[in-house]
């Protein structure tokens, strides 16, 4: 009798624990909404990140490309990104009327008309010119919508701590979300305290399962910027060249 009671109590405690845990699991989609709303609300902000992309995701790359990316955003239409890798420096500057792309390795740059918002820029550059500004997706006016274009479902994995600082001493407690998509699956880490993204690991459904890994190092949602941030001054010896659209290059190849 005594034994039965103990068993019954233990079972009840376990069940209530499971129910309690299930109730406590945060709503993954709601966390994604919160992160997106926070980014969308910031009118002028900056961030830094380390990004690594497998070679098969970048045409012309002989090996995975690791770069330190610094971005300054001024909504609705200004964006300045510098991506520094071991062998190259790229600058990507949109000032609301033009887009300048500077290839530091070759010392060439291109300027094209771009009188559109950051959203319009990301779409046009991708569709017409076949590339994306590094991490520009986090500067879109509605990141939630953009994430859901890639992800069919969002679920909660649990918590994790980033490895910021020496030996991870300044690690940031994050919610880990799983975004399952048609082209790629991704794990997104969102800060528990500030609702900002801190890590993204995307694995593409391609041969070799190529990956994109992003560690966000710093966010400043109250950044102060000057007009100079979005002004490109060609370095000495640099040369202006044309930017060719994907369609033009493909049609040239067929002639």
């Amino acid at each position: 009798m005594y034994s039965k009671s103990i068993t019954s109590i233990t079972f009840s405690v376990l069940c209530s624990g499971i129910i309690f845990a299930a109730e406590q699991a945060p709503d993954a989609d709601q966390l994604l909404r919160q992160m997106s709303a926070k980014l969308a609300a910031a009118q002028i902000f900056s961030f830094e990140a380390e990004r690594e992309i497998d070679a098969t995701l970048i045409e012309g790359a002989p090996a995975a490309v690791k770069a330190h990316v610094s971005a300054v955003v001024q909504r609705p239409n200004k964006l300045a990104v510098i991506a520094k890798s071991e062998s190259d420096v790229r600058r990507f500057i949109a000032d609301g009327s033009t887009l300048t792309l500077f290839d530091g390795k070759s010392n060439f740059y291109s300027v094209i008309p771009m009188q559109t918002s950051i959203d319009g820029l990301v779409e046009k550059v991708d569709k017409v010119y076949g590339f994306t500004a590094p991490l520009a997706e986090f500067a879109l006016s509605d990141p939630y919508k953009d994430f859901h274009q890639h992800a069919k479902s969002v679920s909660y994995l649990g918590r994790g701590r980033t490895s910021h600082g020496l030996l991870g001493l300044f690690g940031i407690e994050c919610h880990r979300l799983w975004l399952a998509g048609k082209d790629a699956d991704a794990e997104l880490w969102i800060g528990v305290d500030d609702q900002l993204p801190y890590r993204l690991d995307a694995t593409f459904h391609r041969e070799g399962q190529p990956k994109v890994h992003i560690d966000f190092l710093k966010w400043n949602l109250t950044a102060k910027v000057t007009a100079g941030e979005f002004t490109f001054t060609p370095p000495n010896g640099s040369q202006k060249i044309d930017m060719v659209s994907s369609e033009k290059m493909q049609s040239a190849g067929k002639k």
Partner: protein
Amino acid sequence: MKITLNFSGILLAGFALLISASYAQARAYGVSSSSAGRGTVYHTDRGGAAYVGPNGAAARGANGRAGVVTRNGAAYVGPNGAAVSGRYGAAAVGVNGAVVVNRPPVNYIRTVPYGYRPIYYGGYNCYYYGGIYYRPVMYQGTTVYIVVN
């Protein structure tokens, strides 16, 4: 002759499919729809180039010769043939015949062959090497060199 022309068309169409197999992909996580899963182009200092992608591989040597490999066969995009492309054209050999096409499928390179010299040509600042002019342009976010002639 009829067989020859058919193979020519198949060769070009096959190569186009190999290179552009994933154009329909959506932009995702910072990877452009044009580059996601397209594979990688490798270049050598001597002017050779090779492409390795999810649907096959292609190579072009410094001497101008090129080959294509797919999952279905070697040195050809189709299941039953072989192809090489040269500086002045391309040739394909299949079980039913052979073909010659008069233009290489790749019209730009990522590295100008070592030993080039800068030259103004056709209204543009170009590079000249081995009888070929290369014009620098920005393409898909990086510098490439269009083979002018």
